[in-house]
Every structure is written in structure tokens, then in C-alpha cells.
């Protein structure tokens, strides 16, 4: 398989702050590659360097064999970018936005209108094509932003946090669109902190933490490498608030975490824990509403690697985030 993106020792300093520290990885042509990390870990900085918006301090980026620093134009023609904030012109209509982007990317004049129509229909915006975007909902703007990013039919699409803040229907539509584009041959580079989204969509994921690649593999391989974070999930009735402390003391349980009305108990031996839980419920006069064993999720892997909850910001990175945002993160 050909290599779409090849990164070698990529480094970025903001003043004295090291945001990305000599990272190396490759993205294969035709794959959906997820780039995961907590806030301030260096995800967006890396993506901005890959899309020519930010100059690396050191290192080399090659996209489709072109050195991005020396020869960016062929790469720019082949890539599309959907940033975290939908960067559409709210003063223009959906049609006006698409026409402008088509001209910017030199889409042949005869192809512009058919492609715009096709995209607007695909994204459910055709009826609103003459409405100014300022009247669009967040989900509609997001869909338009994606349509604008692909009107020139890029072979490489960068998406930065494409679904947070959207309703379930819009998020599902966008995930379907990502799958469809990938099925048509588009290489997808997905920056996200939505672990489950990455799990569902990505062929491979890289986890970045404190500016360094902490792991890179397929979601299933990563999960397999972390068998120690298997768990048993139990829902008890009545759901007393004191179960956690007591469940944690059961033999073999390393951690008890409340998830909604359930408790997730981490253990290396789920099968040995099951009879102990039944016994516990009987002693507590509690009814077991549900009980199941779970393999490690990608989120568990992420937590093991980064040592923090998704979206949490450690003190060190908090400082960096503030500094980086000031500089354009």
C-alpha cells in the first residue's frame, strides 16, 4: 500500500514550549487514520503542520512523496480540510460558499454546479441552498463545511473533531459520510478525542500525549495489548451510593468506576469475579439488574496510556494549552 503521509521527527516549539516532540508515523493511502490525545497533547498542532497552516520547528513532512516545505502546491490540490470550527462564510448562501470554494480550487467551470448540487443533495442542504448560512444550525454548517472541503474531490481529507457538539442524527450522518468517502478511496486523517468514534471509524489510531506518540496500531491490537484492563459491569437495585467502596474491596478488583447506574469493576480475571459479585449481591440484599464482562475498550487503552480522562487537562498541559491557544491552537 502506498504511503499518503510520512512524518519524520516532526517538532514544534511555541517559544520555549515544546508542543510536538520529534514524532514519526506514516498514514497509508486509503486508510482512516485516527489521531487521539487529551486536550493540549499536540493533536491540532500536528494537523496544522500537516495542512501547511503552521511551520514546523524541525522535521520533515512528505505527502504523496512531496516535501511539504519545498513543494506544497501539489499537496494542497489533493487535500481537503474540515477544521474544528465550521469555517464557512455566514454572509453567503450555501450555494455561494460552494461556488467560491470550487473557484478557489480551480474546479472546471462545467463541473462546479453539478458537483455543488450533488453535495448539497447528499448532505440534505439542497432545499436551503439559497439561504444565508447565518441562519443554519451548527449541524448544517458542519455538513456544509465538509461539502466545501470535498468539492474538489481531494484524495486526502483532514477532519478535526468533526462531531462534538452535534445532535446524534448529524453526528451519525457525518460518520456515514466519512465511511462513504473512505470507501470511495479517500484517505482520512481524523483528529479527535471521541474515543468511540475513532474505534468505530479508524483502521489505525495513534495516541499522542505530551507531544509524543505514545502508541500507534489498529484499535483491536491496542485493546489486545491491554488485557489487564478487562472489566465486569454490574447494575444493582437498589443502586446504593456506597457500593463503590465495598465493590472495590472484592478480591481481584483493581478499580471500581461508576458509569451511570452501573459499576465498572476492572480486573485481570473477570470469570473469577462473577461468583463473588453474585455472593456480594445476596449479602447486600440487592438484585442484579445486569451483569456482563467487557474486554478493554479503546478508552481504557487511552486512559492507561495517558493516565487521564478524555478531555481532562493535566496541570502541565493546561499551561501549554493556554500558551498554544494564544498562538493559534
Amino acid at each position, binding site marked *: 500500500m502506498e504511503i499518503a503521509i510520512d512524518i519524520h521527527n516532526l517538532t514544534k516549539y*511555541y517559544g520555549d514550549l515544546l508542543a510536538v516532540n520529534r514524532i514519526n508515523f506514516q498514514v497509508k493511502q486509503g486508510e482512516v487514520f485516527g489521531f487521539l490525545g487529551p486536550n493540549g497533547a499536540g493533536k491540532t498542532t500536528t494537523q496544522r503542520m500537516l495542512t501547511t497552516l503552521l511551520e514546523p520547528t524541525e522535521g520533515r513532512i512528505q505527502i504523496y512523496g512531496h516535501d511539504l516545505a519545498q513543494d506544497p502546491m501539489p499537496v*494542497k490540490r489533493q487535500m481537503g480540510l474540515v477544521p474544528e470550527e465550521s469555517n464557512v462564510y455566514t454572509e*453567503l448562501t450555501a450555494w455561494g460558499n460552494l461556488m467560491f470554494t470550487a*473557484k478557489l*480550487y480551480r474546479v472546471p467551470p462545467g463541473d462546479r454546479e453539478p458537483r455543488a448540487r450533488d453535495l448539497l443533495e447528499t448532505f440534505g442542504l439542497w432545499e436551503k441552498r439559497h439561504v444565508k448560512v447565518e441562519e443554519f444550525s451548527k449541524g448544517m454548517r458542519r455538513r456544509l463545511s465538509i461539502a466545501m472541503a470535498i468539492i474538489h474531490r481531494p484524495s486526502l481529507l483532514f477532519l478535526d473533531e468533526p462531531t462534538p457538539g452535534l445532535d446524534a442524527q448529524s453526528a451519525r450522518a457525518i460518520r456515514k459520510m466519512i465511511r462513504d468517502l473512505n470507501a470511495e478511496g479517500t484517505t482520512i486523517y481524523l483528529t479527535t478525542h471521541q474515543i468511540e468514534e475513532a474505534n468505530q471509524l479508524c483502521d489505525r489510531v495513534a495516541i499522542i500525549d505530551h507531544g509524543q506518540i505514545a502508541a500507534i496500531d489498529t484499535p483491536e491490537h491496542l485493546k489486545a495489548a491491554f488485557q489487564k484492563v478487562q472489566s465486569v459491569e454490574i447494575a444493582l437495585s437498589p443502586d446504593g451510593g456506597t457500593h463503590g467502596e465495598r465493590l472495590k474491596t472484592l478480591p481481584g478488583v483493581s478499580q471500581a468506576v461508576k458509569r451511570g447506574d452501573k459499576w465498572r469493576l476492572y480486573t485481570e480475571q473477570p470469570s473469577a469475579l462473577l461468583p463473588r459479585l453474585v455472593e456480594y449481591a445476596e449479602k447486600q440484599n440487592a438484585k442484579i439488574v445486569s451483569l456482563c464482562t467487557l474486554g478493554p475498550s479503546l478508552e481504557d487503552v487511552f486512559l492507561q496510556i495517558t493516565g487521564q480522562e478524555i478531555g481532562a487537562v493535566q496541570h502541565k498541559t493546561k499551561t501549554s494549552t493556554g500558551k498554544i491557544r494564544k*498562538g493559534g491552537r
Partner: protein
Amino acid sequence: MSRGWITRLQDEISQAWAVAVKDVRVYYLTPPMIMFGLMLPLFLFFSFSIKREIGLEIGLARLLALTTFFTASSAGPVIIPLERRVGTYDRLLTAPMSLTTLLLGKTLVGAFFATLVSAVPLLISILGLGVNLADPGLLLISVPLASLAFSAFGLVFASIPTRSVGNIMMPSTLVRWPLMFISGIFIPLEEMAPWARTLAYFSPLTYAQDLMNHAVLGKGFLNPWIDAAILPLLLILFLIPAARLHHRSRVLGY
């Protein structure tokens, strides 16, 4: 020139035009912008002309110089940081066009707007007040030339690495307003002390005012062809720091 270069040039011109047309539609042809473009130079003109018994022609030459200067150099410093803040500037920077093309597109639209706004007092003066132009042909090239140079001048401030319009307005105001007073607009070059005239030569507005004087009044202090040659040179000169500041923005991440 190879075919590849010709195609590339065609592409870049079309892209610069697309950026200019988009900016006109999105930012320029809005009532506040038109009012600002017309009113500010008019207020400035009246502030420094009332009760000074200047002729209509002198007044028109001043007004045209002020209009091109303030209108062309005002919009850029507002639009680029605004586009940076909402993320639309990233769309332009990632598009397959050179930075020069982007800057030229932005320059073009500021110049177009200033030329359009300048046409209002010009038409009123000619049709309503009966002002006679000494050299209408020269005026026809001097207004766009001055507008292009001043639009690029505004772009230098617009390129400062920031997403806040406020951060740009202060340096822009601090530089542009003093230039108005040293440029032979209110004190003609021939009446200036030698040191003041030397200072005036450092202002781009000096050459626009002198050229407007030639076109409207039929007389100026410098050779009109020197004025007409310096303005496009200034356009190129101003694009250099604008491009460098854009590069700095790429390093800093704005």
C-alpha cells in the same frame, strides 16, 4: 514561458479574482462599510478645509487623496484578523494558491472599493459643482494606482500576527494619521520647510496627493510620472513586509 507556468498564472489570477469578489460580497458592499468609506474622508476634509477659503479644485484633489488613502487602507486591517478569528482565513491559506496571489486578491478588493468610493465625490464635483479636471486621463490612472498602493499599505498592518482587530487598529492609526499631516495635503509641498519636505517624501500619501494635484489642478511639485512610477513601486514594497508577517504568523500559529 512554459505551458505549465501559463496555466499556473491563469489559475493564480482566477484565484486572486475569486478572493476579491468574495470579499466584495461578504465585507465591502455592506451599508456600514460604504458609509464609513464615504464619511471618514469627508469629515476629515471638512475638518481641515472649512473657513480656509480653498478652491473647489484644490478641495477635490485633497478629498480624492484622503479618500483613496483612508478607504483603501482601512478595510484590510479589519478583515484579515476577523477571518483569522472565525477560521475562514485558514480556508484561504490551505487553498492551492500562493501567498502572493492571496495578498494580491486582498489588495485588489481594497483598491476597487476605494476607487468606487472616490467616484462619488468626483462625480458630485464634476456634475454638480462644475469642477473642471485639468487632466482626466491622468486622474483615471492616478486613483486606481493610489488605491492599490494604499490597499497594500493597509495589508501590512492586516498581516500582523493576531486575531484581534484591536491589536491592529492601534499601530495602523498611529502610523496612518501622522502621515496625513506630513504629506502635503494641508500644507503644500512647495510651502514646506526643506526638512519637512524631506520627511514628506517618506510618506506614500505625498505622491498620491501630488498626482491628484497634477490631474485636477494641472500642477504639482514633483514630475507626475515620478509620482505615477513610485505608487506601483510602493505596492510591491508593501507586499514584502506583508508576506514576511504572514510567514511569522505561520511560525507562531495564527
